[in-house]
C-alpha cells in the first residue's frame, strides 16, 4: 500500500495549486458578493484542460484520473467553492454519465466540446416533489416515434443557464416505478426548454442554480441516454461518482478554512500572546486538522477505487458524509477563532462557513449517505 502521490500527481498538484492561488482566489469574494458566475475562470480552466480531466484523449479529454480530478476540485474549492462546484457538476454529473452510458455517436458528438470547456454541462434530477425521494419523478418523456416529448420541471440545477448540455431524468412509464425512468440529453435552445428562476442562496453564490422548464420540449430520438427504463440506475450511478467531487469540494473548503485559521491564530494577539499559544486553540486545531486529513484519505481512497474499477459507491458516500460534516464543523470553529472579524466580510472565513453547508445537502444529503452506507453493511 502506497499513500504517496506519484510524480504526475505531484506535478499536477503543483500546477492546480498555483492556478487556484493566482487565478481563482483573487475572485472568490467578488463572485460571492455579486452572485456572479465566474465565466472568465471557466475559460482559463478550459484552456489548460481542467474541464475534462478523467476522460480519455480519444474523446477530447485529458486522459487523467479521478484522483487528479478530485485533487483539482479540492484545490479550486480551497480558494473558491463556487469554482469547485462548477467543475464538479460539469465533470461528474454531465461528462461522466455521457462517457459511461452514451452511444459512440453521443460520445463523439458531446464529449470533445464538453471536455475542451467550449460547452458546460449540467444534470437535472431534482424536482419540487422529488428530492431525497428521487423516484417520485413527475417530469415525463413520451415516445412519439421519431422523437421524445418532455414535459415538467427541475429545480436547483447547478450550472443552469450557462450549460449547453443537460442530462435530464424523466418518467417514461409511470406504471413501472423506478424501472419506468429514463435519462436524456437535452441541448440548450431546444424549443420548449427554458431556464426558470435563479435561486438566491446562502453559499456558493457565484454558482448558477436555476429551474429547468420543459413545455412540449421535442428532442431527437437519438438523445436517449442509455436504455429506456434505465434512467434511475444511471442517475444513482452518476451521483455515486458526483459524491467524490462534492467530498473533494467539502475537503477543499475545510482546508481553506484551516489555512486561514492557522495564519490568524498565529497573528492575533490577546492577553499579550498569540492565541495559537493557548492550549484550547491548539487542541481544537489538532482535532480540526485530523478530521481534514481523514477526509482527504477517504476522498483519495474512493477516487482510487473508481480509477481501478473497484466498487466505490459506499466509499464515495463515506467520503462525502465525513468531508461535508468536517467542512461544516471546521468552518464553524474557524469563524469562532476569528471572533467578530470572522463574522464580517472583511475576512473570507464567513463565506467558507456559508459555502460548507451545501455539501451536507446536495448530491445526496448526509442522511442519504448514511442510508447508502447502512444498506451496504446490513445487506
Amino acid at each position: 500500500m502506497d499513500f504517496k502521490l506519484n510524480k504526475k500527481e505531484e506535478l499536477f498538484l503543483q500546477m492546480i495549486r498555483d492556478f487556484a492561488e493566482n487565478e481563482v482566489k483573487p475572485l472568490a469574494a467578488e463572485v460571492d458578493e455579486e452572485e456572479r458566475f465566474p465565466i472568465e475562470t471557466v475559460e482559463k480552466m478550459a484552456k489548460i484542460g481542467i474541464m475534462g480531466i478523467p476522460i480519455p484523449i480519444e474523446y477530447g479529454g485529458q486522459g487523467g484520473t479521478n484522483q487528479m480530478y478530485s485533487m483539482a476540485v479540492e484545490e479550486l474549492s480551497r480558494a473558491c467553492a463556487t469554482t469547485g462546484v462548477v467543475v464538479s457538476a460539469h465533470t461528474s454529473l454531465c461528462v461522466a454519465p455521457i462517457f459511461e452510458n452514451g452511444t459512440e455517436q453521443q460520445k463523439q458528438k458531446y464529449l470533445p466540446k464538453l471536455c475542451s470547456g467550449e460547452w458546460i454541462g449540467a444534470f437535472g434530477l431534482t424536482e419540487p416533489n422529488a428530492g431525497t425521494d428521487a423516484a417520485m419523478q413527475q417530469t415525463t418523456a413520451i415516445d412519439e416515434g421519431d422523437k421524445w416529448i418532455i414535459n415538467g420541471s427541475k429545480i436547483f440545477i447547478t450550472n443552469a443557464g450557462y450549460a449547453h448540455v443537460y442530462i435530464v431524468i424523466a418518467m417514461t412509464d409511470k406504471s413501472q416505478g423506478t424501472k419506468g425512468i429514463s435519462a436524456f440529453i437535452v441541448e440548450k435552445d431546444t424549443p420548449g426548454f427554458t431556464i426558470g428562476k435563479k435561486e438566491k442562496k446562502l453559499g456558493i453564490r457565484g454558482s448558477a442554480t436555476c429551474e429547468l422548464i420543459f413545455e412540449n420540449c421535442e428532442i431527437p430520438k437519438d438523445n436517449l441516454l442509455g436504455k429506456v427504463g434505465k434512467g434511475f440506475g444511471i442517475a444513482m450511478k452518476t451521483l455515486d461518482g458526483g459524491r467524490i467531487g462534492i467530498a473533494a469540494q467539502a475537503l477543499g473548503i475545510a482546508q481553506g478554512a484551516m489555512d486561514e485559521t492557522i495564519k490568524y491564530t498565529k497573528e492575533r494577539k490577546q492577553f499579550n500572546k498569540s492565541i495559537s499559544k493557548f492550549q484550547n486553540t491548539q487542541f481544537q486545531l489538532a482535532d480540526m486538522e485530523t478530521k481534514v486529513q481523514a477526509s482527504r484519505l477517504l476522498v483519495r481512497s474512493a477516487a482510487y477505487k473508481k480509477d481501478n474499477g473497484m466498487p466505490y459507491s459506499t466509499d464515495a458516500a463515506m467520503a462525502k458524509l465525513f468531508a461535508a460534516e468536517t467542512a461544516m464543523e471546521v468552518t464553524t470553529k474557524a469563524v469562532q477563532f476569528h471572533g467578530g472579524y470572522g463574522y464580517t466580510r472583511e475576512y473570507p472565513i464567513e463565506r467558507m462557513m456559508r459555502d460548507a453547508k451545501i455539501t451536507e445537502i446536495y448530491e445526496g444529503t448526509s442522511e442519504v449517505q448514511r442510508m447508502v452506507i447502512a444498506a451496504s453493511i446490513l445487506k
Partner: protein
Amino acid sequence: MKIIVCIKQVPDTTEVRLDPVTGTLIRDGVPSIINPDDKGGLELALSLKDLYGAHVTVITMGPTQADAVLREAYAMGADRAILLTDRKFAGADTLATSNALAGALKMLEYDLIITGRQAIDGDTAQVGPQIAEHLDLPQVSYLENLEYDGNKTFRIRKATEEGYQILEVDSPCLVTVLASANKARYMSVRGIIEAYDKDVEVWGFDNISVDESKLGLKGSPTKVKKAFTKGVKSNGEVFEVDTEEAVGIIISRLKEKFII
C-alpha cells in the same frame, strides 16, 4: 526555427538560508522550482512556437533531481529536454557552468538561445553572456520584449537602469530574459500526464567536447572564502521633522560614521 532554452532548478525562496559551517545553501524543506527568469525565457520560446512554429529544446545542468524542471518544461509545451549531469561538472562557478553548457549547445542546432537574466540563488547574471562569448554569438541581455520579423531578425526591447533600448539582432543569437517580460503559462493537464512518458536525454562529460580542466571545481576560478547569513538590520530611527532639519540630521550621522 530552432530554439534552445537554458533553465536552472533553484530553491523556491527569496530568503535563502546558508549553513553557517559549510557556507552552502540549506535546501531541506525548500521546494525546487524553475528559476523565474528562466521560466520567462521558456514562455518566450513557447509563445514564438505558438506564433511562428518552432522546435523548443530545454537544457539544464544540475544534479539528477533537476529532471523535475525538465518535466515541468515538457508539461508547458517544450519538445525536447536534456539533462546535463556529471560528477565532473560538480562545484562549478559561472565560468565552468557556461563552459559545460556551451559545450552541450555546440552539439545542437539553434537559431535562438534563450537564458534567464539571472538565477535567484546566485544573482550573478553571468552564465547567459558567458555562453554567448564561448559560442561567439551576438547577445542581448535584460530582454523585456521581443518582436520577430518571421525570417531572421529580432527587434528587442532591452531594459536598462535608466529606461530601455530597442535593438535589432539577427539569428543565431543569444538573449537573456527577465521574468517580467511575460506571464508564464500554466502547465496543461495533458502536458503533465504526458511529461513523464517522454524521454529526458541525460548527457554527461562524454557527450560534450570540453577540456576537463575547464569544468566543475577545477575549472572554477571563483572560490567561496566565506558565506554567512546577513544579520537583521535594526529598525533605524524615525525623525518627523521638516526637510531642512532632516538633511542636517542625515549629514551629521553620515559624518559620525565617517561615510562622508
